[in-house]
């Protein structure tokens, strides 16, 4: 039977001295959020969306609240670098048209062993995460054959019920799901293989979204619902000896989706195909030195589907990457030095059917060193060459006192090239992408380098094995950042992009204080609490009022016996204002003859209570879960144009066959 927390045990035996231990020994590891399998279970995380909701420093602006389709402007502050997304160490290029579609990643949350979320600049596994990164690790079986499957159905309240025949008639709300996944794996002494699939359907029945999508309706019948449908497959194999470890993985995802883009200011139906294949591994040169390598190929093919309003949206991109590094583990620390090359190709069929190219070359070095008496120092450095050269660096100290406390100080400075963002703006301005089809959306100059500074000072107390306390203060400053400051304008009851204001010299600074407390009140009762206060110190205030000043989450999980658990979660967040939605504030959208809703540029303060249970049967082979979200039924939108939340229940069946 899989114990996801222990699943990597055999692999760790080989790679621990070089890769995993470097990560574990890194003093700043305390500052990143690591969601191990137990954590994912503890918080009853069902989708990646749940993780981002619970992670303190991230402000999710997904436009459907179930899948993850981020827009850059809502991420981690202004404009923002992308958070690179990695699966088992391989970068997945799932971004297109300035959005990042994490739901197209071909593994589900149930198939993951752990999720590492980084919210700060640091070098993690040879990647400099300027403003953060997402590192996913798929679960692996221990010895033998293992099968696992999950099926979840959701029901969001708010249907008309019998009142559909009365003056109280409202439009129908579709069920959520099914969310289904399964995987089969086998592991012997020296090798393992696994294969899995994922499928989900997500109906879009929110009044705003439904009205925005009406012109794109396809299918027959009076009660059509637009649905995101996605199907993925994933396979992975690894082999190890005393000296070598090699891993090959591949995944493919196909979906019909709705992509919200700044250019059009609304969702465009798309057909998206994403695939990747990767080979990676390491060779032990001796007890302390290892050579790591990685090759990968990503393909992302997106096109509008259907295209009733002649809105062009294509993104046919291939990314080929190679990376190598040497890890050195010595008595007082470890270091890593490496090189990476990325080759991007983007096809532009409508403009003379040409392929646009771009190359990125990176070199990096990291070291952490025990200075003695509980004091550790670390340094991360990376340089990137495209058309220009950029540098990124991060330095810090960690001091462990003889008592329960440790203190840490961290500082970073990074430059970012527009090429790194792989953004629509870069390809349009520097490479002429969409010269014929996007001629109405020309930009002013992109900055040559964006700069970002951050310092962090923190105190962590491990009062006992059962009680941890972590508080830190983060100051950050963005210089020469670029952002598309656009407004959503009414077009009847629909919306579209209006005035464009491309800012290429934006400066803004922020101060935030996150607090994290976790404890085991009893061996079977675990609680965690996070709170983050954020304040903007300088820069254009109206652009960043969409970031909540206060964000709070409290989780409690009780597992009285091995076969039953109950969990509850309370979330709160302060109100936000979205400048981009000011022109549509108060815009009425009629769902039917007697039902209206109104756009608002302000989202109300969030107070949400969730509760769930999970019961295992037959020695944990079968389990049923009932999860209730937003029991207090607060009508709440995460984003002015996002869907309205309401009381929602999920019923799940889980199979785990050893």
């Amino acid at each position, binding site marked *: 039977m899989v114990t996801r927390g222990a699943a990597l045990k055999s692999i760790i035996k080989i790679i621990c001295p070089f890769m995993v231990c470097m990560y574990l020994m890194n003093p700043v590891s305390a500052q990143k959020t690591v969601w191990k399998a137990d954590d994912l279970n503890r918080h009853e995380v069902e989708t990646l969306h749940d993780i981002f909701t619970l992670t303190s420093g991230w402000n999710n602006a997904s436009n459907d609240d179930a899948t993850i389709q981020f827009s850059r402007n809502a991420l981690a502050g202004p404009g923002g670098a992308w958070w690179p997304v990695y699966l088992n160490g391989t970068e997945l290029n799932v971004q297109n048209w300035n959005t990042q579609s994490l739901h197209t990643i071909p593994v589900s949350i149930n198939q993951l062993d752990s999720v590492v979320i980084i919210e700060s600049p640091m070098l993690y596994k040879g990647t400099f995460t300027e403003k953060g990164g997402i590192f996913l690790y798929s679960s692996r079986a221990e010895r033998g054959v293992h099968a696992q499957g999950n099926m979840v159905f959701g*029901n969001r*309240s*708010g*249907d*008309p*019920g*019998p*009142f*559909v*025949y*009365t003056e*109280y*008639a*409202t*439009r*129908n*709300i579709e069920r959520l799901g099914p969310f289904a996944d399964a995987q089969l794996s086998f592991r012997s002494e020296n090798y393992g293989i696994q294969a899995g699939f994922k499928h989900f359907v997500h109906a879009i029945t929110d009044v705003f979204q439904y009205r925005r999508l009406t012109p794109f309706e396809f299918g027959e019948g*009076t*009660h059509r619902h637009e649905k995101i449908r996605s199907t993925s497959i994933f396979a992975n194999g690894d082999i190890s000896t005393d000296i070598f470890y090699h891993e090959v993985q591949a995944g493919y995802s196909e979906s019909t989706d709705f992509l919200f883009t700044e250019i059009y200011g609304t969702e465009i139906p798309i057909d998206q195909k994403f695939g990747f294949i990767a080979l990676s591994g390491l060779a032990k040169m001796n007890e302390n030195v290892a050579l790591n390598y990685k090759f990968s190929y990503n393909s992302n093919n997106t096109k509008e589907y259907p295209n009733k309003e002649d809105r062009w949206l294509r993104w046919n991109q291939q990314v080929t990457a190679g990376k190598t590094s040497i890890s050195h583990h010595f008595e007082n620390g470890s270091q890593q030095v490496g090189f990476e090359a990325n080759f991007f190709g983007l096809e532009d069929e409508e403009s003379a059917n040409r392929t646009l190219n771009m190359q990125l070359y990176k070199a990096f070095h990291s070291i952490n060193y025990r200075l003695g008496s509980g004091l550790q120092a670390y340094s991360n450095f990376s340089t990137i060459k495209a058309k220009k050269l950029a540098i990124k660096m991060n330095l810090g100290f960690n001091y462990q006192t003889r008592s329960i406390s440790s203190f840490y100080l961290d500082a970073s400075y990074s430059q970012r090239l527009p090429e790194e963002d792989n953004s629509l703006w870069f390809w349009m301005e520097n490479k002429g992408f969409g010269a014929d089809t996007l001629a109405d959306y020309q930009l002013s100059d992109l900055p040559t380098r964006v700069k970002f500074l951050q310092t962090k000072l923190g105190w962590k107390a491990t009062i006992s094995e059962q009680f941890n306390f972590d508080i830190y203060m983060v100051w950050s400053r963005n210089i020469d950042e670029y952002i598309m400051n656009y407004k959503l304008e009414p077009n009847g009851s629909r919306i579209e992009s209006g005035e464009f204001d491309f800012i290429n010299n934006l400066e803004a600074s922020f101060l935030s204080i996150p607090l994290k407390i976790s404890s085991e009140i*009893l*061996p*079977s*009762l675990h609680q965690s609490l996070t709170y983050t206060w954020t304040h903007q110190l300088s820069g254009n205030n109206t652009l960043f009022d969409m970031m909540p000043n206060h964000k709070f989450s409290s989780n*409690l999980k*009780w597992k*009285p*016996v091995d*076969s*039953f658990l*109950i969990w*509850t979660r309370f979330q709160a967040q302060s109100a936000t204002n979205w400048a981009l939605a000011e022109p549509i504030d108060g815009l009425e959208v009629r*769902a*039917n*003859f*007697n*039902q209206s809703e109104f756009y*608002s540029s302000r*989202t*109300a303060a969030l*107070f949400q*209570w969730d*509760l769930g249970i999970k019961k295992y*049967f*037959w020695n944990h082979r079968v389990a049923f879960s*009932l999860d*209730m979200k937003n*029991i*207090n*039924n*607060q*009508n*709440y*939108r995460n984003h002015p144009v996002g869907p309205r939340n*309401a*009381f*929602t*229940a999920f019923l799940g069946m889980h199979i785990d066959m050893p």
Partner: protein
Amino acid sequence: MGVTKDGNLKVISLLITVAIFFTSGNLKAQKFPSAFEHIDVLLSYQQNVNQNYFHDYWSPDPAFQLELDTPFYAGNFFLSGRFNSVRHKTNEVPGFDNIQVTVGWGLRHEVVERVKIGGTVGTLFSMMAFNYVSDEQRDFAGTHFGSTSPESEIGLVFGADISYEFSGGWGIRVNWNRDIVYTQTKMKLNYIGIGLYRKFNTPIWLQEVLH
């Protein structure tokens, strides 16, 4: 877009229930030998007793409910199904058959010998199949983008009961339930019921599966 008064009341009720749950004597105990040791099978007659805007259009007939109730790690776990035929009072709307499945949890306390009082909370899944939908009704619903096919919705149930156990595992139970079905305009229905139950010892093999 704030929290509704109705929402506040439910939150308070459920918080109290959860508080009872976490502060119950069983919390510290890690063994629950009595869980699933017997199953009560209850058949009851249920009558809707309140009046509100729902009753401007419909009148629920007497309903019948089948319930399975078993000791849990703390309190009791129950699963119930209720069939209710709902007559229409005006020709604007069709009547419908309602099947409601509820999963819930409760606490029961013996106040005098053989007499127990209890409180329950549960999550309901309500399915409504319309009897006959005229063309006019179908058109009306269609213009509102509603569905004339069987409807379903989730909701919450709050209840209280009193039971008396005869000898031989037989007993009688009287209950009051407040059902809140979370349709856009909520269906808030109070039921009073009376029923007969029989206690069965759970077979060992079934206890092992359930544990």
